[in-house]
C-alpha cells in the first residue's frame, strides 16, 4: 500500500517570478517528512504540485513506481501530468474544508466506491483511525469542534487508503492544547496505516516533533533536508540556524577543532571545517550557569530578562564584547538585571563564514 515520494528538479514560476527552484526531495515509504518554511517560501505550492493542483514547469514527481508529473519526459513530446483525482494522493486542506452539505459520514465516504460507501464499515474504520467513534458519522460538520473537523478531514483523506497523504498546515488556527492532541492523533493514524506523509508547516516545533525528516524551504529552494536533530544542531547556514530556533551569534577566530570567542575556547561540531574569522552559533540552552570552580567559567552581567514560566531568556553582556549573549535558564532561578553570573557553554558549537556582505556563496 505504502509508497515513497520522489521530487526531482521541480521548478515552478508564477508568470516570470520563480516560486520553486530545483526542488529535489525524497520521502521514504511509510515515513513523514515535514516541509518547514516561512510564509511565502513556496511550501504550499510544492504541496499543490505534488497533489496535482498545479503543474510543474520543470521536473518530475514520482509516487512509488508511477510518475505522476514530468515536465519533459525522455522520449516523449508531451509532459506527463496525471490529474489530482487519478493520483490517489490524500490531501488535507488548511482549514479542513469539510463539505458543509453532507454529514460527517458522507464526507469521509466521499472518495469511496459507491458500494463501499453504502456498507459504511470503511467509514467507521477511518473515523476510528483518527480517534473518533463511529457515532460521529451521522453528525453534521457544523456540529463539530475545530479539532474534530481536522480529524474528520484526515479520516476523509485516509478512507480511500492512499499510499501518500499531503497535509497543508493541518493544525493552523487550533489552540495549543487542541493542537498537540490533534497532532498526536495524526501521527498515530499515519503510523497505524503506514501511510507516507508530507506535512507543510511554518511551525518549527511542529515540524521537528512530527517529521522523521525536516526539509527547510527558503525562497523556493530546499536548503537543508535532514533529521530534526541535525537541522537543529548542525544547521547548514546561519539563516537556517536562526529560522529553526533561537541562536546566539558571536564573532570568533576558528582553528582546527575549536574556536576562540567571547565565551572562551569552545569545541566545534565535527562537520564544520573552517579556519580564521568566523561567526559562532550557540543555542541559548547550551549556555548554563557554571559550577563552583569550573575552569571554563566566564563572568557576565545580566542586562535583560524575559520570563516564560518553565524557562527564562536571560540577556547577558560578557566582558567588553559588543555581541549580546542570550541564555535559556530554568524558570525557578532569580537573575535580576544588573547582577553578575558565572556561565559556561556545554557541547560543541557551529561556525559559519562571516557574512560581511550578503554574498550568495554557500558553505560547502
Amino acid at each position, binding site marked *: 500500500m505504502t509508497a515513497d515520494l520522489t521530487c526531482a528538479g521541480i521548478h515552478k514560476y508564477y508568470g516570470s517570478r520563480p516560486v520553486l527552484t530545483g526542488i529535489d526531495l525524497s520521502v521514504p515509504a511509510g515515513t513523514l517528512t515535514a516541509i518547514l518554511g516561512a510564509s511565502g517560501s513556496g511550501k504550499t505550492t510544492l504541496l*499543490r504540485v505534488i*497533489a*496535482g*493542483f498545479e503543474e510543474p514547469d520543470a521536473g518530475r514527481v514520482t509516487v512509488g513506481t508511477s510518475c505522476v508529473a514530468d515536465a519533459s519526459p525522455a522520449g516523449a513530446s508531451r509532459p506527463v501530468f496525471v*490529474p*489530482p*483525482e*487519478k*493520483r*490517489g*494522493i*490524500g*490531501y*488535507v*486542506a*488548511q*482549514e479542513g*474544508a*469539510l*463539505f*458543509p*452539505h*453532507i454529514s460527517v459520514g458522507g464526507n469521509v465516504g*466521499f*472518495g469511496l466506491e459507491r458500494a463501499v460507501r453504502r456498507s459504511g464499515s470503511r467509514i467507521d474504520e477511518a473515523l476510528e483511525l483518527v480517534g473518533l467513534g463511529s457515532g460521529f458519522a451521522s453528525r*453534521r*460538520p*457544523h456540529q463539530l469542534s475545530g479539532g474534530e*473537523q481536522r480529524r474528520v*478531514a484526515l479520516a*476523509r*483523506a485516509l478512507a*480511500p487508503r492512499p499510499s501518500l497523504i499531503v497535509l*497543508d498546515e493541518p493544525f493552523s488556527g487550533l489552540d495549543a492544547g487542541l493542537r498537540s492532541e490533534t497532532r498526536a492523533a495524526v501521527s498515530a493514524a499515519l503510523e497505524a496505516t503506514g501511510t507516507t506523509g508530507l506535512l507543510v508547516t511554518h511551525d518549527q516545533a511542529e515540524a521537528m516533533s512530527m517529521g522523521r525528516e525536516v526539509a527547510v524551504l527558503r525562497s523556493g529552494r530546499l536548503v537543508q533536508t535532514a533529521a530534526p536533530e541535525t537541522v537543529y544542531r548542525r544547521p547548514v547556514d546561519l539563516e537556517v540556524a536562526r529560522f529553526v530556533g533561537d541562536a546566539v551569534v558571536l564573532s570568533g577566530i576558528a582553528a582546527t577543532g575549536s574556536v576562540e570567542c567571547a565565551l572562551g575556547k569552545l569545541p566545534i561540531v565535527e562537520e564544520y571545517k573552517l579556519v580564521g574569522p568566523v561567526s559562532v552559533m550557540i543555542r541559548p540552552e547550551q549556555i548554563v550557569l557554571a559550577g563552583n570552580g569550573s575552569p571554563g567559567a566566564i563572568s557576565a552581567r545580566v542586562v535583560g530578562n524575559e520570563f516564560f514560566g518553565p524557562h527564562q531568556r536571560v540577556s547577558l553582556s560578557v566582558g567588553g564584547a559588543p555581541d549580546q549573549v542570550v541564555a535559556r535558564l530554568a524558570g525557578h532561578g532569580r537573575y535580576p538585571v544588573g547582577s553578575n553570573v558565572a556561565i559556561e557553554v556545554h557541547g560543541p558549537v557551529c561556525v559559519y563564514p562571516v557574512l560581511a556582505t550578503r554574498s550568495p556563496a554557500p558553505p560547502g
Partner: protein
Amino acid sequence: MIVLPILVAVSQAVGGGWHAAFHDIRQAGMGTLILHTLAVCVLVTLICGAVGLGTAWWVERTDLPGRRGWRMAMVAPLTVPPFVTSYAWVTVSSAFNGLAGAVVITSCTYFPLVFLMVSASLRGLDPALEESARSLGCSPGRVFRRVVLPQVKPALLGGMLLVGLDALVEFDAFAAVKFQTFSTDVYAQYLTGISVSGAAVLSMVSIVLCIAMLGGEWKLRGGAQYTRVSQGARRPPSLYPLGGSAPGVLAGMGVVVAASLGVPLGTLVYWFTRSSHQGLAAAAAGTRYLVPSTATSVGLAIASAAVGLVLALPIAVAVTSHRGKLVTLLERGSYLSYALPDLVGAIALGYAAAHWARPLYESVFLLVVAYAILFVPLGVVALRATLGQIEPGMEDCARSLGAGRLSSLWRVTLPVARPGIGAAAVLIFAFVIGDLSTTQVLLPPGMYTLSTQFWSNSSTVAFAAAAPYAAVLIGLALIATYVLMSRFGRVRTLEAG
C-alpha cells in the same frame, strides 16, 4: 451560442450594404439619438450607483429600524416590470415624459441591481478591517472612504455596469414616456417596416457603446479582481448607530420606496377604484385570460431560468476558478448579448431560425432560448456572487479523493452553492416575467402572456382591464424578491449548516 444573435445582427447590418446603413443612420437623426442615449445612460448609472450604495450601507451597516423589511423593499422594484412602472408614472403626471421621466423610471427599476451586489459585498466584509482603521484614528466617514469603498468598488462598478447596459437597451419604459434612444429607434425602424438592416445598424452603435462601458468599468476597477466576498469573516459586521440622523435616513429610504414601489402599486389601486362601471365590466370580462396567461408566463419563465442557468453556470464557474485573458473575454462576451437591444436579438434569432432551423421558427423553444441568452449576464452575476465564496480547498479535496472536474462540480460545488443558484434562477425568472419586447417578437401566434395582455390593454387605455395583469405580475415579482433576497450571494457553510 451567446454571440449568435450578435453575429446574425452584424451580418444583417452589413448585408444591408454600408451605403444603405449610412443612410439609415443619417435619417435616424444620429446626433439626437446619441445625446439622448448617452444622457440617459450616464444619469441613470450615476443615480443608481448613489442610491444603491447609500441604501445598501444604511440597510446593512447601520441600526436602521426594520432592516429586514427595508432589504425586501429595496430589491422588490427590480422584479416589477419596467413597463408597469412607466405607465404608472405617466398616469401620475404628464411631466414625466422625456428625459426626466426616462431617468426617474429607469433608476427606480434598476437601482436594486446595485443594491443587491453592494449589500452582498458589505455583508461579507471583515469587521476587523474597519476596526483597525478606526483604531488608527480614522473617523467613520474616513473609514467608509478609505476602507469600505475600495472593497465594495468591484461590486459597485459591476452593478453600475449592469444598470448602464439596461439603460442602453431599455425599450419598454422609454416607449411609454416617449423618449427616443437607440433602442426605441430600433423598435420604430422595425415597426414602420423600413428595414431590418436599419435596426441592425442602429444596434451596432449600441454594441459599440456597450464595449465602451465595459472598457470604462475595466479601467475604473483598475484591474482589481472581484474579491472573495467572505474571506473567513466569522463575525457579522458591526452596525453603526444612526443617532440623530435616523429620521432623515428613514425619510430618504421612504422616498426611494415610494418612488419605486409606491407609485406602481398605488396607481394599480387607483386604476381599480376610479374606473367607470363600463371599464370594470370590461376588466371582469378580460380576466378569463388571466389564468392561462399567468400559466404561460410562469411556464416560460421557469423554462428560461433553467436554460439560462445551464448557460450561465459554465461561464460563472470558469470566471471564478480560473483567471486569464480568455476567461475574461468570455465573461465580457456574455455582457455583449445584454447590450444588444432585446428586439434586435430577438429578430436575429428569429431570422436564424427561419433560415437554418425552420421547425424552430415561431416555437416556444426558440423563445425560451432567446430569453435565456438575453438574461445570461444576470445569472452569471448572481452565480459569481455565490461561487466566489466557496472555499477553494473544498474542490481540491474532492479532486484528491478521486472525483474528476465534473464530478466534483456536481457533488460539491453545486450543492454548496445551492442558495445562490436559486437566486440566479429567480433573477432570470423575474426578468422573463417582466419582459415585453422579446416576447412580442418571438411569442408563437395565438399565445399570450401577462405582459402582452397588460400591454394590449394599457395601449388601448383600458387601464382597469390592464390592472389585474399588472397585479399578478407584481405579486409574482414580490414572491421572487423574497426568494432572491434570502439567497443572493449565499453558500452553505459550516456555520449555517
